[in-house]
């Protein structure tokens, strides 16, 4: 195959390369350097080899935070993805309802993370918050500052409120790209509503769903601001997720070495899961086409 390649295009990629280098690659290299040293100040540092990695890998508090993080991320995905698909399927396809629902759905996405945390912190309070007050009025003893279960539910509901719209908007875009001919063919064949969803809508939404799941996985796995503002990781350590644990280690205790080692492990987990998920879904798509 004689393919004409124009290597000038590489020059156009250079600005992006420099931005990524400065914002991601150089900091990551610095983190690797920090992870093998005990640093007191820029002049006083000692090489410790893999000591921090061993310490971090054997830390039971970190294991707990990791388990909490996995449970949290899986819960977020299991709630938000089906709910996002369901809402996208019920949205209007034409008329004024389209713009109205788009604006309404986009609203939570426009709110900064710390503001979302503050909104829910006030909303969930039994004394001044509408949500907390109503729940207590129903006879349920709800207090997210004292009861770990309540704190968990509040953090989860907050995330669902904040991010389900993203999945809805992505799925809606996927659904809109399906030509009418598919639906007409399904109608002629007498396909059920479920069959239309399973064999037309779901496959066509696959690529946007991959992006949606990846974004939600990465975001929820790295979640920091919202639980920090809402519960501060408490009660106790009940809602202390990985990034909060890391920040406490790096900024609170100023343990830069262990924090750097932990950051790298954290990065490797995210890298592996995203790669496996992306590869599996993309290969499944290819096999489906063949």
């Amino acid at each position, binding site marked *: 195959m004689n393919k004409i390649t124009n290597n000038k295009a590489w020059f156009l990629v250079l600005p992006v390369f420099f931005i990524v280098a400065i914002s991601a690659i*150089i900091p990551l*290299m*610095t983190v*690797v*350097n*920090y992870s*093998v*040293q005990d*640093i007191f100040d*820029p002049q006083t*540092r000692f*090489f410790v080899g*893999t000591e921090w*990695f*061993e310490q971090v*890998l*054997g830390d039971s508090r970190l294991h707990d935070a990791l388990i909490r993080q996995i449970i949290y991320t899986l819960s977020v995905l299991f709630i938000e993805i089906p709910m996002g698909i369901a809402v996208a399927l019920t949205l209007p396809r034409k008329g004024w309802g389209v713009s109205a629902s788009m604006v309404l759905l986009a609203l939570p996405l426009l709110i900064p993370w710390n503001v979302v945390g503050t909104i829910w912190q006030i909303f969930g309070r039994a004394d001044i918050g509408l949500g907390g007050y109503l729940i207590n009025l129903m006879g349920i003893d709800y207090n997210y500052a004292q009861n770990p279960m309540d704190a968990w539910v509040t953090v989860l509901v907050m995330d669902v409120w904040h991010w389900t719209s993203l999945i809805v908007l992505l799925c809606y875009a996927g659904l809109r790209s399906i030509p009418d001919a598919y639906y007409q063919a399904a109608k002629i064949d007498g396909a059920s509503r479920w069959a239309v969803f399973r064999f037309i809508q779901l496959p066509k939404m696959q690529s946007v769903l991959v992006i949606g799941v990846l974004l939600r996985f990465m975001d929820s796995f790295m979640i920091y601001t919202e639980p920090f503002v809402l519960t501060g990781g408490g009660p106790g350590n009940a809602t202390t997720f990985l990034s909060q644990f890391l920040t406490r280690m790096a900024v609170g205790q100023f343990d830069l070495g262990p924090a750097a080692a932990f950051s790298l*492990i954290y990065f*490797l987990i995210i*890298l*592996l899961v995203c*790669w496996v998920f992306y*590869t599996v879904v993309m*290969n499944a798509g290819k096999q489906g086409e063949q």
Partner: protein
Amino acid sequence: MAWMAWTPITAVFFSCIILMLIGMGIWQAVSPTVPRRGFLPLTTTRGDRLFISLLGAAYIHLGWLAFTDIALWIGSVIALAWLVIVMRWG
């Protein structure tokens, strides 16, 4: 560069990675990769296999540190073997 807190070992580590990437780039220019299927359950190009082997090597080291007290260089040898196996037969 002092703020990056370089050590000789990490400098060698990153030099190896950069050399690997440059080497792969030249190799690709000289003889472009052909996607193929080895013992890994997916079709891979040369770059895919390098990524898989490097990621695997990182996990082998982490697992070694987490579950054994044996000297790390043995883990590194296993990781290197894994790298060669994946690049050749993956």
